[in-house]
């Protein structure tokens, strides 16, 4: 019996590893974010949603060079009570979508969600009118720092449509990486098809 267990152990280990979270490809072209929401990727990205802390089923996280160098959050429509970043414990809550959020509270939701990712000195700047798909929203930029003091920049859009909140958020180090992929991110924001 022990011999059989020994023979099956590597197989069991392989199955266990296969069941583990992995990074998958997000190839250039149309990418469905949700049932009625898609964007067009201009190049190949990696989908790192399943290896990141605080992930939720409604949020896809893409990267090109790894999460510390560039990350793009794409949320499907978040409903009241849902998060962009899931809390690790009840005693360390993260921002949630509320039914009666004001425009400034939606921006606060973005800023405080980035704080929940443990970025420091997060500042949302240049909020401006924008479209996401056919709906109206707010474009914004962000500045922040990593704990060790690296300057980070961000940009994105938040839009409430049909009682659901859609967030697209790009974060990358200010030096080289943010600008290197900004045009691609702008194109992705512009490509959003909703509804």
């Amino acid at each position, binding site marked *: 019996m022990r011999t059989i267990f020994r023979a099956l152990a590597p197989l069991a280990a392989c199955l266990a590893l296969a069941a583990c979270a992995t990074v998958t490809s997000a190839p250039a072209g149309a990418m469905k974010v949700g049932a009625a929401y898609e964007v067009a990727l201009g190049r190949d990205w990696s989908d790192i949603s399943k290896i990141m802390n605080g992930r939720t089923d409604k949020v896809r996280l893409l990267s090109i060079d790894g999460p510390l160098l560039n990350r793009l959050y794409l949320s499907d429509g978040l409903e009241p009570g849902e998060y962009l970043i899931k809390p690790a414990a009840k005693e360390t809550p*993260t921002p949630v979508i509320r039914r009666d959020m*004001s425009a*400034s509270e939606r921006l606060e939701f973005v800023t405080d969600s980035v704080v929940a990712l443990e970025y*420091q*000195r997060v500042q949302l700047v240049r*909020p401006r009118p924008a479209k996401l798909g056919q709906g109206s929203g*707010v474009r914004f930029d962000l500045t922040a720092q990593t704990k*060790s*003091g690296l300057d980070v920049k961000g940009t994105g859009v938040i839009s409430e449509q049909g009682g659901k909140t859609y967030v697209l958020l790009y974060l990358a180090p200010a030096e080289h990486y943010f600008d290197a992929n900004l045009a691609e991110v702008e194109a992705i924001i512009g490509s959003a098809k909703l509804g």
Partner: protein
Amino acid sequence: MAGRAVSALALAAALASAPAVAQERAAGLRPDVTSAEAGFWSVMDDAEAEAKTRADLNTDPALNAYVRGVMCKVAAAHCPDLRVYVMDRPFMNASMAPNGYSEVWSGLLLRATDEAELAYVLGHEVSHFTENHTIEAHRAKKVRANVALAATVVVAVAGAASAASAGTASEAQSIMDATGNTIDLIYYAQIASYFRFSREQEAEADLLGQRKLAAAGYDPAAAPESWRGLITETEGSDFKRVRDSGTRNSVFSSHPLSSDRIAALDGQAKTLTAGGDRGRERHRAAIRPHLGVWLRDDLRKRDFGQTLVVIDRLAVSGEDLGVLNYYRGEAYRMRRGDGDLPRAREAYLVAAVHADAPPATWRELGDIRRRDGDLAGARTAYESYLAKAPQAEDAWLVQDSLSSLQQGQ
């Protein structure tokens, strides 16, 4: 075997016994480069270099000079040995490394009612330095590890010998089980003794810190009061687990219970000169430029009950009521529990009568009135915001809200 088990228990008890009291180090003393202490210094020199580049380092020269000044008052002759860095972290904490590198977190500065409470915490941290607590803890840990290892070997050999001479297989198995349990007990005792040592060092630093506080001319009553403030804040938490944490301790706790610390400090205060400087105005003047940012950081922890307790303490003096009531309103607005939005509206209204209320007070008041259906009131508040902050980056958003109100949307 029973006798041997008792011996092992005695060993375990020995592991948990109190450490020898550390000697105060001489001012200006640097460790021998070949010593274990020099190794700690080297590691902490690296940590200090890293701290200087961290994003949350507060670089306000006036604030840093204030904190360093208070540190030097309680450190006296040791002042030149110490470097203190203010970090913008919303937790009540300060730390001291064996090389004299110290951090004071903004959460502590926000929670200290006055300079005397800050001086007590700094005196506590200075005492860790002057009493060589880190190196003493390291030495004690090594001794305990050696004792535990020796005890484990003795118990294991004795257990094996007894099992070998047992009359039956089941008796041998029972002896081996008992041996294993005894070894586990020795290791638990070793870990528990490490934490007990830590608690004793904390208790010692508390009393020494209070003596340093009094010697520097401050009121020694500030020491227990700082702990009472922390207990009140813990009790005000939105989370049961946090509220309960203040009354629970175990053999694996690194710090004594706050209530025990208060009792010890109240007791020692009777032996010290009562009264003394509190420095409330000096402290508030030093932290005033940072109140808004630190309260926003505190709100982002999202334990709004605790933040409200902190705001209540800050508001007792009757100063900064525009800022404090604005953030009180923010805490209620963000928490959104039963009755919180009316409380937020009231807090914004109180803030609005004070000259130091941030312009955002009127934007939030407009949003709340709009939710309440008070459209005329919302319009007035939005107009006030735009008048007070015409250049605000979100002015167009508020103008948008105002326009939609005027269009009856």
